[in-house]
């Protein structure tokens, strides 16, 4: 429990201190094409007969966690796998729609490992680590092979071969997909491989268990503390290494496209125990989501950005038209603002730009749809031109399932009236800092998938999240963690070890503290308020004054939370309010660090737009001289500002350029 707040201030420097620079020490020297082979060869091995004497804890069962648990189980390690859901098949990777990139060049359109690498670094606005991204592109082709062998039903052509489509502004067709349910099919593939290992006895599966603390012994991560979400039992588990594959923290904004249970607790607890947190402010805000309908809304739903290929985005020219039926607004009174501002790319500008302009239109008072709070937050996505050109059937053939989904959620028929869309948070590029081996700054603690920071820089390209999760889980971690495990056996640890006793006590103390407040406000009311603060000041556009204000508001919110939250029930029960309360505690602390990170990075890059750093035309302006680094934050207690460690980004293979879409 933490009620102390950090010092306040008026200048960015008041909110952090600067520590020593850090470097990734694991990527070997040499040409980028050879680094991964070299690293795999140099990594120490563990003899198959020794693997069964070693154990690995993996938290999370999504693409990164489930794939790693299955693969390490197959390799012969004893795996303990945890998830908060009732089955490993529920992890939120399942909700990804569009596809997964792989440099297969099955279309003979000049794709290559290097091109996928190049596109991903550029898409990330030159804020990702070259070595990690190259490896991601390199193993991408193996992922497709592996998934097909598992029976993942990718879309196929009549000849029986795999189909591809293009995605997110890339000029080649390298995206493999399974209708609009690619994430589901990939996850079910990993889940089946995982259940096969459960049956084989190599993986012990703990569902409805939430990790609440990491146990560090002699400087190494050796275990975790979990709460059994059915009985409330707080228990410690031990292993030779710990892997966090716990997803992103978009729920810091309350409303996001994340599942309701997604949280930052595992990563944040590791951060509090010494793991650096990388680039927390890099958030991806997706432009085509169904708008908020009211204060009681619990989550947002994404619709594939492919809709922007045929839909035209507009708002009324005059604010007084915003209440009208859109069909009654004359053509001359509509502002197709993306086509107006970006004649070359029009409605197909990148995600970050489309999102920010939608916000600008609504800030001008020209948003549409129902008022939520005091503003209308929506813009039209109009298919009437497309219906005129292709016919209703033609549009239905391309987008039928998306139109049905829209109709089911909003009760409106998008064939008759324009859709309303608005940006929503859906991915966090930041996460726990890791090196080339995916090891955090705590020895023995590995972090994979969205939970780490490494591959997407300041902006993630479409169809890259599934690629990273499976690359980490199937191919990267299983080839790097052995280098660490070869150093085992480590000191024997059990529940009586002082570090374990201390960690269990910390968890129980926090639970008791949450139950003891017995105030007057619900957990959700605090979570929503945090979300409003983050969305307003650390969302699509950030300013120095706004971020400083937000930090103050979050500190105040944290104090109020610990004074006035109401958590009903007891610990020894299936207590969903208690679960949420613990998550909100960590999200509030993380939110503050996100604001500090956004405040210190006085440049715009990718999804991070600082109003102070823009071109004359209002476009994002990077500052490579000052900010060409990863911000890795060290926790320094609740009463001290966090410490910034810079990891300089070195671009040897790719030349830095400014993005332009005009």
């Amino acid at each position: 429990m933490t009620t102390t707040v950090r010092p306040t201030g008026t200048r960015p420097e008041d909110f952090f201190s600067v520590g020593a620079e850090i470097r990734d020490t694991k990527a070997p020297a040499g040409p980028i094409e050879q680094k991964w082979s070299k690293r795999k060869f140099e990594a120490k091995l563990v003899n198959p007969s020794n693997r069964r004497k070693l154990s690995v804890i993996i938290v999370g069962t999504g693409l990164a966690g489930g794939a790693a648990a299955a693969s390490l189980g197959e390799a012969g390690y004893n795996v303990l796998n945890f998830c908060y859901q009732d089955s490993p098949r529920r992890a939120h990777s399942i909700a990804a729609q569009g596809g997964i990139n792989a440099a297969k060049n099955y279309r003979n359109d000049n794709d290559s490992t290097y091109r996928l690498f190049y596109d991903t670094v550029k898409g990330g606005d030159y804020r990702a680590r070259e070595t990690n991204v190259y490896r991601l592109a390199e193993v991408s082709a193996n992922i497709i092979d592996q998934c097909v062998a598992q029976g993942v039903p990718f879309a196929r052509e009549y000849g029986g071969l795999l189909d591809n489509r293009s995605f997110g502004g890339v000029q080649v067709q390298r995206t493999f997909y399974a209708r609009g349910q690619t994430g589901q099919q990939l996850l079910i593939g990993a889940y089946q491989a995982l259940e096969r290992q459960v049956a084989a006895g190599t993986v012990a599966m703990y569902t409805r268990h939430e990790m609440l603390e990491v146990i560090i012994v002699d400087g190494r991560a050796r275990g975790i503390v979990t709460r059994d979400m059915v009985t409330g039992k707080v228990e410690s588990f031990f292993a030779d290494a710990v892997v966090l594959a716990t997803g992103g923290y978009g729920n810091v904004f309350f409303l996001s496209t994340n599942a309701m249970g997604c949280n930052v607790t595992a990563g944040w607890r590791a951060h509090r125990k010494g793991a650096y947190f990388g680039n927390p402010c890099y958030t991806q805000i997706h432009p085509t989501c169904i708008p908020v309908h009211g204060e009681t809304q619990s989550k947002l739903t994404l619709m594939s950005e492919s809709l922007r290929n045929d839909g035209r985005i507009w708002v009324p020219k005059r604010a007084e038209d915003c209440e009208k039926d859109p069909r009654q607004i004359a053509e001359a009174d509509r502002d197709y603002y993306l086509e107006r501002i970006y004649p070359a790319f029009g409605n197909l500008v990148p995600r970050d730009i489309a999102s920010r302009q939608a916000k600008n239109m609504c800030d001008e008072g020209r948003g549409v749809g129902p008022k939520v709070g005091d503003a209308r937050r929506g813009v039209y996505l109009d298919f009437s031109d497309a219906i005129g050109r292709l016919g209703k059937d033609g549009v239905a053939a391309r987008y039928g399932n998306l139109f049905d989904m829209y109709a089911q959620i909003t009760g409106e028929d998008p064939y008759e009236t324009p859709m309303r869309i608005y940006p929503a948070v859906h991915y966090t590029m930041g996460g726990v800092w890791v090196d080339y081996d995916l090891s955090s700054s705590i020895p023995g603690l590995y972090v994979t998938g969205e939970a780490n920071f490494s591959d997407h820089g300041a902006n993630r390209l479409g169809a890259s999240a599934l690629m990273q999760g499976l690359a980490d889980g199937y191919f990267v971690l299983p080839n790097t963690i052995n280098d660490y495990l070869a150093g085992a056996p480590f000191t024997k640890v059990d529940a009586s070890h002082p570090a374990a006793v201390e960690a269990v006590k910390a968890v129980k103390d926090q639970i008791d503290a949450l139950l003891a407040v017995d105030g007057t406000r619900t957990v959700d009311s605090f979570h929503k308020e945090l979300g409003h603060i983050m969305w307003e000041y650390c969302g699509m556009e950030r300013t120095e004054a706004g971020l400083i204000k937000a930090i103050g508001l979050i500190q105040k919110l944290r104090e109020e939370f610990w004074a006035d939250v109401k958590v009903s029930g007891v610990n020894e029960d299936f207590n969903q309010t208690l679960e949420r309360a613990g998550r909100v505690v960590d999200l509030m602390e993380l939110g503050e660090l996100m604001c500090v990170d956004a405040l210190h990075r006085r440049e715009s890059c990718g999804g991070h737009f600082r109003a102070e750093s823009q071109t004359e035309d209002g476009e994002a302006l990077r500052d490579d001289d000052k900010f060409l680094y990863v911000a890795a934050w060290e926790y320094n207690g609740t009463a001290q500002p966090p410490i910034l460690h810079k990891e300089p980004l070195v671009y040897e293979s790719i030349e830095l350029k400014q993005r332009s879409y005009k």
Partner: protein
Amino acid sequence: MNITLRVWRQANAQATGKMVTYQVKDVSPDMSFLEMLDLLNEDLTLKGEEPVAFDHDCREGICGMCGVVINGTAHGRGDSPVATTTCQLHMRSFSDGATIDVEPWRAGPFPVIKDLAVDRSAFDRIIQAGGFISANTGAAPDAHAAPVGKLKADRAFDAATCIGCGACVAACPNSSGMLFTAAKITHLAMLPQGQPERYSRIKTMIATHDAEGFGGCTNIGECSAVCPKEIPLDTISQLNRDLIASLFKKDGK
């Protein structure tokens, strides 16, 4: 809208449950059914009462974690032509002043944990019994090594869309898990990669299905009618064909 809810309340697996009536006021027609339950829970919390426990996660109809019986129908589709999960059901489907009954999945193999939340781990154990293709990481041939005809690929996909929510079991008078099992059997049986284990998988999965306490299939079809992913009933025919064929296979022990 104002709604009267009659909700199943049960403190834990051992306790006796009962229906309890609540009034929920100021419900917006745009709210999802689960957001309406959130509203009830916020209200109960402020009154110092225990909120209603229910499982949910993605709230976009794909994770399979949510699911309650609404007015007697699993996921509450009722007479609507649109298949749905509970999270994608919206309050505009109900009229103002309606009384709505909300119950957990009721089936022996799915014991109640609390209120509306049930234990569906039996489904995981059916998958463990053979619902996979044995392909270790790193051992895969090139993805184009084995083409799959589009019709079979599409049929495999249709079956693979199962989200494992358990509505099929809740809707079945026999509490049969046959549609769930058949979806996986059909998915893997349509693919060349699934052939080597095709006739052993079906025996072990059916044996586990029965051992977990699920009932047999008597071709009623309620399962498919409530399935949010509209898994077709003919997957069960496929399962039966493969099961009979397996009896004549030496290697399908």
